[in-house]
């Protein structure tokens, strides 16, 4: 048996507070440790920000859906947008060897998401009726044994 909770937000940074609170509450309900709850908040914040910045090309009234499933041993979070798709495998890892001057100021978001969550999957779904693609980002955080 699993429960599902969904909220939909306009693609605006001011909604980061809300989506972080939403997933934190469910992560606690799910029984995750405080450090894991924070990790979930950080990963969702990064993913939500990327959708605004990259999929929608900036803040707009376009929608971002956040669906949370509480399972017996994990929290599954799926973010859904209908902006620009991209190829995650083409994104390079940050260069941790670079010294200060060479360090890129960005490029940490995807890396954080992968590090903080136990399972991360990008799924791009064609929607024939609208002729658009919708993008799903499915992230799993498992409870510690």
């Amino acid at each position, binding site marked *: 048996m699993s429960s599902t909770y969904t909220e939909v937000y306009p693609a605006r940074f*001011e909604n*980061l507070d809300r989506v972080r609170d939403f997933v934190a509450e469910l992560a606690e309900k799910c029984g995750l440790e405080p450090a894991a709850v*924070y990790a979930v*908040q950080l990963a969702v914040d990064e993913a939500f920000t990327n959708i605004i910045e990259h999929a929608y090309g900036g803040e707009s009234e376009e929608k971002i859906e956040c669906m949370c499933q509480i399972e017996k041993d994990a929290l599954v979070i799926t973010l859904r947008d209908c902006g620009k798709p991209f190829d995650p495998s083409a994104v390079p890892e*940050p260069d941790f060897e670079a010294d*200060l001057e060479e360090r890129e100021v960005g490029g940490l978001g995807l*890396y954080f998401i992968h590090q903080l969550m136990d399972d991360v999957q990008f799924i791009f779904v064609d929607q024939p009726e609208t002729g658009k693609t919708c993008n799903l980002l499915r992230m799993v955080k498992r409870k510690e044994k």
Partner: protein
Amino acid sequence: MDITTTQYKHSDLVKVNGRIDSATAPQLAKALDDITNAGRYRIILDLEEVEFMSSAGLRVLIGTQKTCKRYNRGEVILASVPKRIYDALELAGFVPLFRFFDNVLDAVGSI
């Protein structure tokens, strides 16, 4: 997010309260730019009251650190960094790029 800035003789202390994310990071960037644009490059960031910081905040930190360290004219020092925020700095590989102090007094005294 709230920002309180205090100008000392050898440094500027910037105390941040609340959440640093994509919505609020520009405000932090502005506060830090105001200081470096005034030709002051020794900045102490008091992070004790920061509850959340995303990579948007880290980006501001690293950008300001680049500006401050250029020509050896200064640095950004991080004081009273909560465990969660330190973990994120570590994940980003930023720990070697900053000096850290447990308390603001020692940070202000060190610069």
